[in-house]
Each structure stands twice: as C-alpha cells, then as structure tokens.
C-alpha cells in the first residue's frame, strides 16, 4: 500500500492514538502487515511518541529536582529576633526551673536533722574570764575542760543549780547527743528567766533549745521557737535564724 495515499498519514496517527476501532482498525493492521514503508512510518511515529513521553518525564523530574535542590540549598532562615529571644528565654527559664527543681528534690531527700544541727551548731564559749574573787565553779571548769559527763554528774549532785549551771548542762547534754536531757535543761533556764531580771543566758538557751528540738525531731516546737527568735529584734541569735533554716525544718516536717 502506498502510504502517500491521501489521509493515510492521519489514519496512521489516529491508529497510534488508539482512535481507530472495528473495521477501520483491522483494515489498517492488514495494510501495516503488508506494507514495509507504512510499517516504517508507523515505527517512526512510535519513536516520536516515545521521545515526547521521555521529554515529559525529564521535565517532570527536572521540576521536582529544582524544588528539592532549592529546599536543600536554601539557607536556614534566621528566627525573628523577638521570637528567638522568647525561645531562648523560655529555654533558660526551663533550665533554671529544672536545676532548681533538681536541687530542691536533692535537698529534700538528703536533708536530715543531724545535718541541720551540725551546720548551725557552734559550741558555746565561756567568754568571761573569772577573776580571783569569783572562782570558777566545778560545772564551768568541767565545761572548759570538755568533761561533759563530769559536768552533768556535778550538776546532778546539786552543786550548781543556777541558770548558768543549767545552761552549761544543756550544752553538755547536746555535746553528748542526749537531746531529751538538753531540752529539759534549756527549758529550766527559760522557766527560771520568766520572772528574772535581768535574764541570764535566756537567748542562748532558746537558740540551743531549738537546735535540740530539731535533732530530736520535734519540728513543731523547733519552728515555733525559731520564729519567735527571728521576730525578736533584740534577740542575740536573731541573725543566726535564717529563712533557709526555717525552710529546712519545714521540709523535714513535711517529709
């Protein structure tokens, strides 16, 4: 068949596009089988269509390639200044909160009555040297020599029942870790001072009594006394009773 037949080329393209059916299609397929030139033209059309499809695929991939590479190579956008500040502030605040929380939890679980006692206790010092007219009492002598057991024995033997002697007994009992005894002695000092004027070693007794309560785990008594000391502007130990100390005793109470 001569493919120069008018309309043959259009018919071949229609066949290529799947537009022929029925008799027309069968007729063209017969012609294709019999006509090498027509067959060649059809092959050319198939190759042309394949080239278009390949070009389409190239274009589609190239479009996505541009998108992907643009995204991959585009510089990281700086965060707006305010946004960045807020972000960093939140991060810092969160870090501080975390650290503070960790610190509080750590303190909460590692805090102990003995630890608080040790960090607030300073042994009382007999500061006033006695002159020859006022000889040192056996209790004072024992305290100075740190013979606490002898001090309490001497006191219990009834040799020094003054507030000063009771106070030193309390201190000796603290040194011996006899909390109940220390509490008892310091309370005697405070009771004796209720009617006394001037008061003798009352502030000292109150402070050391609060420490004795802490170590004895009597936190309510300790807190009551600590608050009283802190609220008293003239109290000798006011400066020693810090908010931290009160907070720690409270924590022990909660735990």
């Amino acid at each position, binding site marked *: 068949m001569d493919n120069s037949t008018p309309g043959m*080329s*259009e018919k071949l*393209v229609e066949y290529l*596009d799947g537009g022929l059916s029925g008799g027309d299609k069968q007729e063209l397929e017969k012609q294709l089988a019999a006509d090498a030139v027509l067959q060649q033209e059809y*092959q*050319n*059309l*198939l*190759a*042309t*269509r*394949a*080239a*278009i*499809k*390949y*070009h*389409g*695929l*190239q*274009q*589609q*991939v*190239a479009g*996505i*390639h541009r*998108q*992907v*590479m643009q995204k991959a190579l585009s510089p990281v956008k700086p965060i707006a200044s305010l946004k960045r500040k807020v972000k960093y502030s939140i991060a810092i605040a969160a870090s501080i909160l975390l650290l503070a929380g960790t610190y509080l939890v750590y303190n909460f679980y590692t805090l102990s009555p003995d630890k608080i006692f040790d960090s607030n206790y300073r042994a009382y010092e007999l500061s006033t040297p006695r002159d020859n007219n006022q000889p040192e009492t056996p209790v004072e002598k024992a305290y100075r020599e740190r013979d606490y057991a002898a001090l309490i024995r001497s006191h219990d033997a009834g040799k020094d029942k003054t507030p000063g002697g009771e106070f030193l007994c309390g201190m000796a009992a603290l040194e011996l870790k006899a909390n109940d005894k220390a509490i008892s002695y310091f309370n005697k000092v405070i009771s004796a001072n209720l009617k006394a004027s001037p008061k003798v070693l009352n502030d000292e007794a109150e402070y050391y009594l609060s420490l004795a309560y802490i170590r004895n785990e009597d936190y309510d008594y300790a807190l009551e006394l600590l608050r009283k000391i802190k609220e008293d502007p003239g109290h000798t130990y006011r400066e020693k009773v810090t908010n931290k100390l009160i907070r720690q005793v409270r924590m022990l109470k909660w735990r």
Partner: protein
Amino acid sequence: MEVNRNLPDTELVSNLRSGQRMDESIKAIYRSYFDSLGWYVMNNSGSRQDAEDVFQEVVVSFIDLVQKNKFRGESTVKTFLFSLNRHTWLNELKRRGRAMAREEKYERGQERVELDTSHLIADREGKAEVARLVGELGETCRKILLLFYYENLSMKEILERMHYETEQVVRNKKYKCLKQLEERLNGNPALKQTLKNLLHG
C-alpha cells in the same frame, strides 16, 4: 498537605509503573537516595553539580525502565539506583576523557555494587539531543504533545486548557506538531539508536 514519608519498594515501583502519585514518588526517591548516590559521584572526581545532574538522569532512566517493565524487582530499588548511578557517572567520566585512576568503594551505603545495569543506560548525548529537538518545537506544539502523550489528556481537556475553538482544531494542531517532530527526529540519523532505545528500552 505534603506527606513526607519514604515509600516501600513495592509501592514506589507500583506508583511509577501506573503513573499515579508521580510527584510524591519522585520526591521519595530524592529523599531516600540523593545523599548516598551524590556522595559517590562527589567522592569520585565529581562536583556537587555533577552529582545533581547524574542523579536527575538516573531518576529519569529508572522511571523509564520501570514503565517499560525492565525493572522487575530482582534487586532492591536502592541497589538498582546505585548501579545506574555508578554506570552513568563512569560513562560520563569516560566521555570527559579522564578515567578514574581508582574507584572508591561505597562506604556510606555499605552496599557493594555488583549489579550491572550498564546495558540499560542509553547514551547521554542522544538523549540530550532528543530533549533539544522536542524543546525546539515551540511552546504551543510542545505543550499540546506533552498534554496528549505524557499527561494523557483528552482533546476536550486540552481544548479547555489551550483555548482553541474546537476539538478538531486541537486535533489538527496536534497532528501537525507530531509530524513536525517526527521529521526532525528522522532528519537526524545519529539518533537512530537512541530512538530505538527509547522505544524498546
């Protein structure tokens, strides 16, 4: 909303073969394989631009082969792409006249390339020439032919997009454009093998 996920081999190949969700599938290929394949080119005398060009060509070749049923899953998509990438780049180096003194092994992918896909890669120059000839058709012709033969739109749909008067006018235009391209391609005997490869793979 763009779904940013990697696709299993079977889903990827199925999409590419059917032409469904092509954009998503092509992006998945880029996401999964560009870094390692590009690394190979850049570690074997290539630049970043070479890596991009070769990868783009590899993706086109891979999809073309999948659509011609030349990839039947005998290997993983990754192995197949690595092989295509390697041979495409070796061919390019040979073309440039500086064969590599020593080919470095893949390290990042930890996968030895033993699959030979060199026979599947048609010549780059031929493909480039075909692309040039199609590109030179003129915008209208190129668009009509792509809409009809690549995007598989009907004459009615093309009419709506191209604003011609009737479907018959579109049909006539498309016929003329096709014949014009056919003449251009046939007028270039050097493209015979490339066209044969495009036709049969």
